[in-house]
């Protein structure tokens, strides 16, 4: 009885969107690899199909086990495991495309950073739903920031900048949702903006002026204001100094870190080919399996990172807009579930999971249309990749879990 009542509360649009996207994904993994030169790639769509089965089973489990069990100690435990796996990756990980991102035994490989994002959401939801956490107090920001910084730093070390920025997005979204005053949110991101702008003096001065004005009108006490000003001044002055004193090879390392494929022969080429693929799809597309760009292997990562380009080429604006709208549905329903849930932990859990989706979807699609740098992030649900698909459905399951129990406090 209870189960049927719970089942009625499942967010159907979200579930349908997720499954549709996964099926579309399998179809285009098939299309992208059907003519593959390497025979090893030809059976990938079947593998992905099996993964979908595993992922759906996983989603069922995460949806049925009441989400409240994760609150508190278990979330810390899971977070600890996630961190340990990340550390292990650094020492014994497989190197793929120049970074250590994989852990594995024999044939089985998985990417701990995928798991780390989910457990970070759990632990942040625990902290932010704690009644002792008062977000109007600056010092209460310390713990969530620190906890998010640990996996972020470890992933950055791999190095995988794209994924490490995901942790910032998760943290900021969840802080915002937990009720952090917008002023604090702004002050929190000022050092990051500062680093980026410190190389362009006029823009930096403008930014400093805005910051000063905001601080002046903030009615904050003197000490927090001084702290913010001090941090920003130090960051703003030190960054260019440090940069100028770096050896050329060290600078090179930093620039490759920010833009791993800064070489236009690599990434620029991929982006141009991706844009040509998507653009040439025009309104109706060239037809399923009829893409020409991929046929000549111009899209190297076409079944993983550049799957959206194949969709765009073969199904045109109609198809790419449909996929985009399915993703929009997924996100908006996720926000709605978070909004509807009465339990603070559950609500934060749902928004955190949704923010992971949001970040990956936007970064990947923007990359394929040339609006973002090549970061090597997969497109959730659509890209080939077992861990990615499984994690995505675990997230879907958790969001559904909150949706089904929205009445519970």
């Amino acid at each position, binding site marked *: 009885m209870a189960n049927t009542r719970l089942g009625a509360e499942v967010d159907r649009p979200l579930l349908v969107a997720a499954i549709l996207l996964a099926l579309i994904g399998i179809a285009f993994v098939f299309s992208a690899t059907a003519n593959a030169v390497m025979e090893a790639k030809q059976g990938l769509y079947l593998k992905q199909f099996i993964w979908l089965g595993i992922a759906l089973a996983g989603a069922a489990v995460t949806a049925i086990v009441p989400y409240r069990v994760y609150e508190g100690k278990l979330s810390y435990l899971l977070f600890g495991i996630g961190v340990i796996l990340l550390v292990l990756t650094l020492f014994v990980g497989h190197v793929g495309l120049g970074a250590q991102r994989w852990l594995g035994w024999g044939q089985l490989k998985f990417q701990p950073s995928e798991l780390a994002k989910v457990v970070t959401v759990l632990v942040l939801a625990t902290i932010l739903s704690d*009644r002792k956490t008062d977000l109007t107090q600056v010092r209460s920001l310390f713990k969530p920031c620190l906890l998010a910084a640990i996996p972020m730093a470890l992933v950055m070390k791999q190095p995988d900048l794209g994924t490490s920025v995901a942790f910032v997005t998760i943290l900021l*979204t969840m802080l*915002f*949702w*937990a*009720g952090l005053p917008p002023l604090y949110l702004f002050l929190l991101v000022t050092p990051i903006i500062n680093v980026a702008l410190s190389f362009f003096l006029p823009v930096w001065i403008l930014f400093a002026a805005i910051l000063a004005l905001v601080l002046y009108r903030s009615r904050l006490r003197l000490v927090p204001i001084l702290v913010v000003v001090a941090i920003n001044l130090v960051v703003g002055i030190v960054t260019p100094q440090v940069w100028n004193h770096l050896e050329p090879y060290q600078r090179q390392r930093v620039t490759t870190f920010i833009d791993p494929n800064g*070489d*236009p*022969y690599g990434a*620029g*080429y991929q982006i*141009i*080919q991706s*844009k*040509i*693929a*998507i*653009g*040439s*799809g*025009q*309104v109706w597309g060239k037809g399923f399996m009829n893409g*020409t*760009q991929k046929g*000549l*292997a*111009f899209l190297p990562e076409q079944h993983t990172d550049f799957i959206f380009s194949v969709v*765009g*080429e073969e199904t*045109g*604006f109609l198809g*790419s*807009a449909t996929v*985009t*709208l399915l*993703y*929009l549905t997924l*996100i*908006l329903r996720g*926000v*709605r579930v*978070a*909004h509807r*849930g*009465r*339990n*603070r932990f*559950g*609500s*934060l859990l749902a*928004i955190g999971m949704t923010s992971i989706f*949001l970040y990956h979807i*936007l970064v990947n*699609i*923007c990359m394929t*249309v040339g*609006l973002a740098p090549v970061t090597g992030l997969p497109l959730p649900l659509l890209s080939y990749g077992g861990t990615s698909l499984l994690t995505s459905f675990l997230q879907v399951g958790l969001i559904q879990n909150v949706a089904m129990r929205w009445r519970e*406090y």
Partner: protein
Amino acid sequence: MRFDPIPVRGSTRRERILSWAVGLVFAFVLLRLFTMQVLQGTRYRELSEENRIRVEVLTAPRGEIRDRQGRLLADNIPSFTVTLDPFDPAYQGHPALLDSTVEHLGRILGGDPVELREKVKRERRRSFVPIRLMRNVDMKSVAYVSEHAATLPGVDVESEPLRRYPLGSMGSHLLGYVGEISDKELEDPRYADYLRGDLTGRMGVERQYEKVLRGVDGKRFVEVNALGRKAELLGDKRPILPKRGTDLTLTVDLALQRAAEEAFEPGARGAVVAIDPRNGDVLALASRPNYDPNELATGISFKRWKELSEGENHALFNRAIQAAYPPGSTLKPFVILCALAARAIEPGTTFRETCDGAFQFGSRPFRCWNPRGHGTLALRGAVAQSCDVYFYQLGIRLGLDRLSSFMKTLGLSQRSGIDLPQERRGLFPDPAWYDKRFGVGRWSRGLILNLAIGQGECSVTPVKLAQITAMIANGGMMWRPRLVREATREGAKISLEPAAADSLSHRLSLNARDLQRVQESMEAVIYDPHGTGGLAKVEGVRVAGKTGTAQNPHGDDHALFICYAPAEAPEIAIAVLVENAGHGGSEAAPVAQKVLHAYFHPAAAESARIAALKPAALAPAAPPRRG
């Protein structure tokens, strides 16, 4: 029970903000898709079907190589390379057309159509970068290709720096050459940033310092339309200009290198290595016969390559570092050093058996090189006259254990560590080696007799011989021979793995008096009336040396000679080897003499050379291919 009636305070407002923000961003993405696919779709469709975007690699010139005086040994000149893009739309579904284009090109450019077709077949499987079909193409062919662009789809002419060795074959083994990267290397992660058709250093300095000599290639995007015209794609990416590689200044002195190479008779096979005993600088390193690296830089036919590498003379083979020869009597000073260090002899020690041209060991006579015999000699005379009978008896007194362990401290079985690739190890066998080779106890004690005169199973490379000679000259310092004096990138000096260079140089703990005795005996080799090395005398300088004649089971004896000068304050140490030439004193010592002469009397040597200079001596770069 109910802590929080409204679970997240103010969540309605935040939900609205977040939803609108998400909606806005997605609307922006949709707008972008709409612009690309609907508004600009025709343009992109054209790009994907008729026209092709290509990456054009702007090859970086390699760093220049100069001698220690700044004289140019290797630079770059502009050249044209004809490329073929096998993925041109014209060839999609028409493989026969591709074949006929290749054949057509072969006719124009004068290449072997079968070889070219093989090349295209091999390379198109690997990448989608246009294939560099033929390098160093002459202007006439360039003009032809440009005029007939319409009938030659996917064919293009690119400008590429061509490696040039302005002195032709001079220093060829030292410099090495460049050649196209091989399939095997492309799979090697160390060559991860290389593309098919890229040139890479082969042998010599070109290979050893490939990482620094190679510059950073630039890139640009070009759009090629059906008429073969190129338009740069502005807006998307600006071209990245290539950066020239690091320039190297070698320790080698061109005048000395030239003297070393020209000291050989035409057609002779051999090697010369000259080292500065004060710091290990390699002043000259020559191997004969040599080859013209310019010929190899443009890509040669398989047949010609086989001829160079496997032909009778093995011209590509660097005899100075890749070949180990029995040291013959040049080993004797080292044997003396061992005996003195072991206190087995005194300078005045003589042996029981006097030299009457042979030494009876068991039932077998061991001959001295001089059948008339030397009589009874002590250390100095035995070295000067190279008396084998003295050394047979010294060998027996020392025994294999002591001799082989001393040779081990000299590093005779090790590489010199010179900064050149493919250096071979020499060998000085010890009892364990013989046990392994012949079985425990199944080898004769008589082997020591041959080893003591540098024959038998021991062997050494000319560079190692020069290194040890330099050590004797400088009083015990074993320098790792080095070829690069200075490296500059964009006008600024840079350092090349300094730690490795120093770790291999070390001081041997040798008694100064022992060394002095050996040095004196080596001077006697040159100046003693009966000395074997008189032909190495140079006016105004005192030379110390040792001759060697190595028996060679495959043919005539190899002639060897080691020396250094000035004896009182050595500045140059030399090892000479001439294959199948005969006696070291008559065949190898004169070669060393010419190098010494060029070193100590540069002006006289230069004017003598200019007087003998024929106009053809300065070889230009390989002439462009003709159509």
